[in-house]
């Protein structure tokens, strides 16, 4: 009877896929919601280029690791790491660093602020 076994496993799989949400430390920097930012970073798969702590399968090596980003003084080695600049950078990196390989991302301004809050919480 392999069918019933498979059926029994399916709800477990559905849970694994849709609904996991490891907790994240609430950010004190920035105005955004770090938790929403984390969800956005996961669903856009920034992890295809970056290794990002706390996000499953985020182990890309095209760009730098985002671990400890909240402690850094500069973004991309050139821009001040304040919440406004970080939000602008994740939304449209080429407008700030013309030679960068990081494309503009499909983020609304509000989403970018949340993403910046999430990144600032990585200490």
């Amino acid at each position, binding site marked *: 009877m392999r*069918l*019933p076994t498979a*059926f029994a496993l*399916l709800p477990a799989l559905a849970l694994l*896929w*849709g609904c996991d949400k490891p907790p994240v430390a609430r950010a004190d920097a920035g105005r955004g919601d770090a938790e929403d930012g984390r969800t956005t970073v996961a*669903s*856009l*798969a920034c992890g295809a280029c970056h290794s990002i702590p706390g996000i499953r399968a985020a182990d890309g090596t095209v760009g730098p690791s985002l671990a400890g980003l909240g402690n850094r003084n500069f973004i991309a080695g050139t821009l001040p790491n304040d919440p406004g600049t970080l939000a602008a950078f994740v939304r449209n990196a080429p407008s700030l660093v013309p030679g960068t390989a990081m494309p503009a991302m499909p983020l609304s301004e509000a989403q970018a602020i949340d993403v910046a809050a999430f990144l600032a919480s990585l200490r």
Partner: protein
Amino acid sequence: MTRVRGLPAGLALALAGCTPIQSALDPAGSNAGMVFDLGVAMTIGATLVCVLVVVLAWRAVRRSRAEGAWLASPRMVIALGAVLPAVVLTALLAYGFVLDRQLAAEEDRAALTVRVTGEQWWWRVAYLAPDGSPAFETANEIRLPVGQPVRFELESADVIHSFWVPALGGKIDLIPGRTNTVTLLAEREGIYRGQCAEFCGTQHALMAFMARAETPEDFGAWFAAEGGDARQPETEEEVAGHGAFVAAGCGACHAVRGTAAAGTIGPDLTHVGSRLTIAAGTLPNHAGTLAAWVTDAQAIKPGARMPSFDELDGPTLRSIAVYLASLR
């Protein structure tokens, strides 16, 4: 290094909240519904048989002498050991035959045929014209009109794969040298995930696709547009991206209809920007992930039949990604 990406979680969250997009327990059409009913019947039947066996085993251990004799009598052995299984399995067989006929009748109703070819590790998709010739080719995503059964001709270019959209119908193998068929029916609009269900090599886990069930009007509009040539590059960056695409030799493997790119080794990219995912369900689709894929395909999906283009400079890589995203 094989990496299972966060896409299913990401897409599920983004598109469907916590509703499952790949579940045989949530059928979105009567074909999958019939298979689901069979699953339920078998689960209930198996549970009853299991309970019966446990109860009898328990009685046999704690029996009185008289009861032991009753359980071990030739009449009981024949009734429970031969007659019961014969009746149950015959009923199940009959159910299976009837179900099979019903699904076959759905196939006769299908007006649209789609040919899907499994390749390591992606899906070549051709919508067929009424005369059976390919009307146009696309990849890694299928669309179907709600309420109309769609017939799938399934083939393989290399090893055995298996085609399964749990919410829309049964599972069937893609076998080299053979054409198998299956009919899917969506009765609920939505986005469903399909997955290769037969181990086909190292990147088998990253061989998925999306099935989008749309109203017949939306489907008709898509069908007309999808058969057309690629959108011309418009912005300066798109024009530069198209130039870089040509210069990098992408056209040796990929076709972009309406341009010189006519390769057939990899997925057709004529309307790649309109897909939900890239690289067979591996990543969500936008300029960022397109850039990641072009420069780092071998890290994202090691062994895939596309090299990493890791010698492009930043602006060139971005322009290719922006050009691809514009191919809607």
